[in-house]
Each structure stands twice: as structure tokens, then as C-alpha cells.
């Protein structure tokens, strides 16, 4: 049994989206951290690695696919943090690009409240 809350890092440039996901995840019992783009996310990872990541694709400075590539090039255990990619793009080519970069799962936005919480529980191995 975990004696601490599982921590999720939400990487998305939209304030409202980060707030929306934060509320869903906090209600589901997670602790949430936020980053506005890939560069900020990489910095956060090094300071305190989360248990799972939620990463948007279209972001300024460093997009989600570039970030994923950089994440997977880190040393273990950082490089293996499970990552959900969320995006408004839902074409097969977009999903494939995220998979190749190292996504564990891909959800087209809008992501349902329950789906988001359930996927993170699964990534963190939280029994429900």
C-alpha cells in the first residue's frame, strides 16, 4: 500500500486544461504538478520525478513529441515514467508519431473525466 499520494505531472500550455485535469486528478486522490511546455517539464522531472505524465502535443517552445523523445533518452528510472499523450489530433499518423516517440497510451481530447482518472490509476498501479 502506498504511504504517499501518487504524483502526476500535467504538461499542457492551456491554463484551463491544466486546471481541469488537476481537479479531476486531485478528486481521484492524486497529487498534481504542472508544466507549460516540454522544456519546463524536463526541468521538473529532474527536480522531482512524478509517477506518471500527461503530455499535450501542441505546445510552444517544446512540443509533446520532442519532449517524449528527450524523456526516453534519460537514464532509468526517469526514462520509464509512464506517459499518457493527449491531443486534439486523432489521425492515425499523429498516434503513430506519439507511439514511436515513446507514448504508453494516446487519448484524443476531449478526454472524459473517468477515463483520465482511470488511466492514471492504471499507470500508477493504484488498485480501484
Amino acid at each position: 500500500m502506498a504511504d504517499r499520494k501518487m504524483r502526476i505531472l500535467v504538461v499542457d500550455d492551456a491554463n484551463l486544461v491544466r486546471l481541469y485535469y488537476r481537479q479531476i486528478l486531485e478528486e481521484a486522490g492524486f497529487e498534481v504538478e504542472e508544466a507549460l511546455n516540454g522544456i519546463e517539464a524536463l526541468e521538473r522531472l529532474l527536480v522531482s520525478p512524478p509517477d506518471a505524465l500527461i503530455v499535450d502535443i501542441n505546445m510552444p517552445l517544446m512540443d509533446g513529441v520532442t519532449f517524449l523523445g528527450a524523456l526516453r533518452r534519460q537514464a532509468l528510472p526517469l526514462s520509464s515514467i509512464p506517459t499518457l499523450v493527449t491531443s486534439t489530433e486523432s489521425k492515425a499518423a499523429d498516434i503513430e508519431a506519439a507511439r514511436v516517440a515513446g507514448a504508453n497510451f494516446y487519448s484524443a481530447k476531449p478526454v472524459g473525466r473517468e477515463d483520465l482518472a482511470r488511466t492514471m490509476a492504471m499507470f500508477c498501479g493504484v488498485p480501484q
Partner: protein
Amino acid sequence: MVDSSLLDAEEYRRLCDYLYRHTGMAFTEARRYFVERRVEDRMIATGSSSFASYFARLRTNLQGELESLINASTVNETYFYREDHQFACLTSNLLQERLRMKPRGETMRIWSVPCSTGEEPYSIAIWLLENWAEVDAHDIEIVGSDIDTSVLEAARAGVFGRRALMRLSRALTDKYFTPAGPEHWQIIDELRQSVRFTAANIVERAETRPHGLFDVIFCRNLLIYFDDTSRRVAAENLYESLAPGGYICLGHAESMSRISSLFEVCRFADAIVYRRQPEAPHG
């Protein structure tokens, strides 16, 4: 026929003359309903049993009654989730309609003007988070504008008293505000960063044009304070600020059809709103 008017024609004329001489505000017959409701509120507040006794109180300005009536009639008294049936219409109909017409991925732009101290644009943000399951799937920009720069400062600070929060549930208050001193609450940073506040006078085209085109405009309880000329200018500017097919929501006592024929009336389950004609399809 039952006459539901509080004042007879002569009483209403005397009241309007009096207000016009003391404030310059020209209340016409068209605004009778609005004026009567304010007078009714003040009669109750002062315990006046008839209009005659209230009018006597007003003319002698007993306990500053003239100022109280003026404040009741002009002060941008507002609060969170005011007329929220229009927000319901926003999430049930307007946004979906706009999404159907917009190029995919284009930002959804919502304008609150006048925004006063921020209650309306922040309400829109909260409403979207709580009631729009697609809130994460679109870029949303919420802009609040007002002619009064002092209210914009307050809006950016986002600190509100109990009255402004009276229509929000405890759960929503806990979720979106943090205590900020006795009887005051500050809206959380994420929301403050989600709304942009700018100065704009809607009768000046040079001030509205730089704001670009909006999908939905909330302009509630402003046009009632204008005379016919300013009202027409404002309506034209608002029209020019709407994307083709965009919507505008007015206050419940206001009617755009009475001001301008530019817009078409749209009736939805939760509200009546006005729309700028979509551009005719080419070919």
C-alpha cells in the same frame, strides 16, 4: 386588462423629469420596466407604502435617497453566475454551433464587456470547467473589457466579497477561491491567468477593433444606460466585433431588435440571443 405598472403615466413622467434634472440620465418609456423595478426595490428598502410617499422622500433627498436610487439604477452591481441560464445556453448550444462553423483548431474567443470587476468573465471560465466536457479539446480565450480602468485593476486582483459569491455553491467557492482576509475571497491563480483584461469603450470603434473577432460576446445591462444614438453606435461596433455566425447575449431586460436590425434573433432552450449572419457559402 390588468395594469401591472407600479406607477401611472403621470407619476412615471414626474419621476423621469426629476431624475433627468438631477442626473442627466434620460429614462424613456422603453425603460419603464427597469426604472419601476429599481423604484420598487427602493420603496421596499425604505418602507414606503406608496409611490407618493416614496417620491416625497426622494425629492427631499431624505437619508441620501437620490443617491441610493441612482446607485441602484446605474451601479454595475454584479455577482458570479448572474443570469446563468445564458451560460447554460453557451455550453448547450452556442459553442457547439460555433465549432461547427469554425476551422478546426481555431481559438474559441469569448468577450465579456463591460466586465466590471471580473465576476462575469471568471464565471464563464468556471462554468466552462464545470459544465463543458470538451473544455480540454479547444483553445479558449476569455477577454474581459471595461471603460473604467479602476475596475480592471480590481478584476485582475480577483478579490471578492460575500455578496459577489452569493450564487456560488460552497463546493465551487472552495474549489475556485482562497480566503483573502475577513469576508473576502480571491479567485485562484490559474483562473486569474485564464482571463485577459483590457480597457475598451464600446462606442469607440478604434477601441473595439484591435480586440479582433469573437465567437460569443456577453454585453449585459450596458446598452440600457445609453441614449439611442450611442446605443446604435455600440450595436454596430459589437456587430463588427463578432465573427460571422457569432453570438451576442444581452441582459434580460434588453432587446437588440429594438436597437438594430443587423442581428438575427435566435431562440434556444435556455436563452434568447442574437447572431451576426454567417457569411453566405461561396459558389
